[in-house]
């Protein structure tokens, strides 16, 4: 019989390793996509249009997950789409994290007018509906991968800033910070050497969650056709295509959807798993 704590730890273990397994496989597939994809993701062949996946009758060997209406290989497009998804996840996630966490750390540790300005900004930001805000930004910036990354950073920095600010305030009130100051550390030194290491676990958790959000935002924007050019394979673009031919070729929708679903789930479960792992009460 497991007691409560080891039960949580047991579940946390699975929560960490399954997502790590999926994400590393996906990362590997994304990097190796040009070499392992069975076909050119852009190659069209109207004679091979709407081929079903390999276990359904009427398929063509070599097209494992079927083809779309233009005869493009679904598996190859998913592999190449993984590159876009993970690229956005890593770049947008990291930049958002750096900006948001820095602002949160400054506001929470320095307090005073810095805190007032940053907190007011956060309040105004929270009054915008995020999906509408991102679409508005894309309208302003024009479609494209860079615009998506900028939009994610501009909208989501508050997620980091809010949490890190609160955390830095709690840490700042603790005795070890006062001792460091007494021992002669400057304000900046205290912030980077004493506070930062202690808020880092929270930041890592938020970063993981943010990467999942970035993947979904990219998918949504390419679904409404505001992402990169329509020829380049993206999961959201494939889903939009599959949606319009849902009764003729379900596989064009189902396979990118599975990839997207598992990736988003993996990032958020990894984040939650890390949260439990870092939690001193559970540890």
């Amino acid at each position, binding site marked *: 019989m497991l007691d409560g704590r080891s039960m949580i730890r047991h579940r946390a273990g699975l929560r960490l390793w399954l997502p790590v397994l999926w994400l590393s496989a996906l990362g590997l597939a994304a990097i190796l996509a040009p070499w392992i994809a069975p076909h050119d993701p852009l190659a069209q062949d109207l004679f091979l249009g709407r081929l079903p996946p390999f276990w359904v009758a009427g398929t063509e060997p070599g097209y494992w997950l079927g083809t779309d209406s233009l005869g493009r290989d679904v598996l190859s497009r998913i592999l190449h789409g993984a590159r876009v998804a993970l690229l956005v996840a890593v770049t947008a996630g990291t930049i958002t994290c750096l900006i948001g966490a820095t602002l949160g750390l400054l506001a929470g540790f320095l307090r005073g007018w810095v805190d007032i300005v940053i907190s007011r900004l956060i309040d*105004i930001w929270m009054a*915008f509906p995020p999906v509408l805000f991102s679409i*508005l930004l894309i309208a302003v910036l024009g479609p494209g991968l860079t615009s998506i990354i900028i939009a994610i950073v501009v909208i989501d920095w508050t997620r980091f800033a809010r949490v890190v600010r609160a955390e830095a305030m709690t840490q700042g009130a603790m005795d070890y910070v006062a001792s460091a100051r007494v021992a002669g550390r400057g304000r900046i030194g205290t912030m980077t050497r004493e506070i930062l290491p202690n808020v880092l676990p929270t930041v890592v958790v938020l970063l993981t969650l943010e990467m999942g959000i970035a993947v*979904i935002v990219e998918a949504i924007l390419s*679904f409404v056709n505001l992402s990169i050019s329509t020829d380049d394979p993206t999961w959201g673009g494939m889903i939009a295509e599959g949606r319009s031919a849902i009764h003729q070729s379900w596989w064009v929708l189902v396979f990118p959807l599975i990839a997207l679903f598992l990736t988003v789930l993996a990032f958020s479960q990894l984040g939650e798993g890390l949260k439990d792992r870092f939690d001193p009460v559970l540890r």
Partner: protein
Amino acid sequence: MALFRLVAIRLLTTGITLAGVAVIVFFVIRVVPGNPIAMMLPPGATEADIARLSALYGLDKPLVTQFGIWLVGVVLQGDFGTSITARQPVLELVLGRLPATLELSIMALVIAIFLGGMSALIGTRGRGRRTEGAIDVANGVALSVPDFLWGLVLMLLFGVLFPVFHISGRVTPSLDLPFVTDFYLFESLLRLRFDLWADLVAHMFMPALALAIPLAAIIGQLLKQSLKETMNLDYVTLARTKGYGETHVILHEALRNAVLPTLTLVGVQFTFLIGGTVIIERLFSYEGLGNMAIDAVINRDLPLIQGIVILFAVIFTAVNLIVDLLYAVLNPRLRHA
């Protein structure tokens, strides 16, 4: 007195937020590259044609003047300008679509409260046992995956694999609609036209459920947490010793004291749900405000984008305001102060 002060402060901050939103939206939109006027004219239009049309829409004046004219129009006449693509007043277009989005959001909210409440009830009854574990896992998954993906999953399951619901539109186009308002769902009930009501629900159910799933998980988690805490209090034990069953104790004794934190959270989360309608309406080709917003962005219809964003911000802040006031009325500490 405390209540009155609270209301006054909240009204004031709401006004400030909305003013901030209006300013930001107006100026951000004007940075849009690409001349919307050039898109309205047929190819071969001369510079003079462009200038004439720009003057007609007031786009030739300095930005600050444009903002002044716009703000006066909005505040004094409720005039949000004219849509560039539809060539109709923005307010008319937006108000025509608002009921569809409101009905969808409210239906989603009702489903979320029902599902979340049921899962909290079942989880509390089975606390510490396998039932609770199963509910926790289900809530975790429901919460990790956003409404957009739930919409696609539902569409495949109940639109294609088992086609019980419609996957696009608000109502079957061939039906003859006797409605005078745009609140089709409410009006079909009032007119006792249950055939139309069933058709509307068959269109709305999947998008509403997709929006509801993440919110249901949040409600389920928090309500179960507060119920479990309340269930350990002495007065609940007393009710139990009187011989009431577990479900009766939860519903009649514990719920009243456990529901307040959930209520506040539902308010905040409801605004996220309304934001989610943008993409869900697109996915299900539902003719609401969100779908219109995406079309407006694709067509660079500046006055329309502006009107929709501001209307969304008004809804957001109104919901927050209502929740705060409800909380103040329901919280005994504030009510008697």
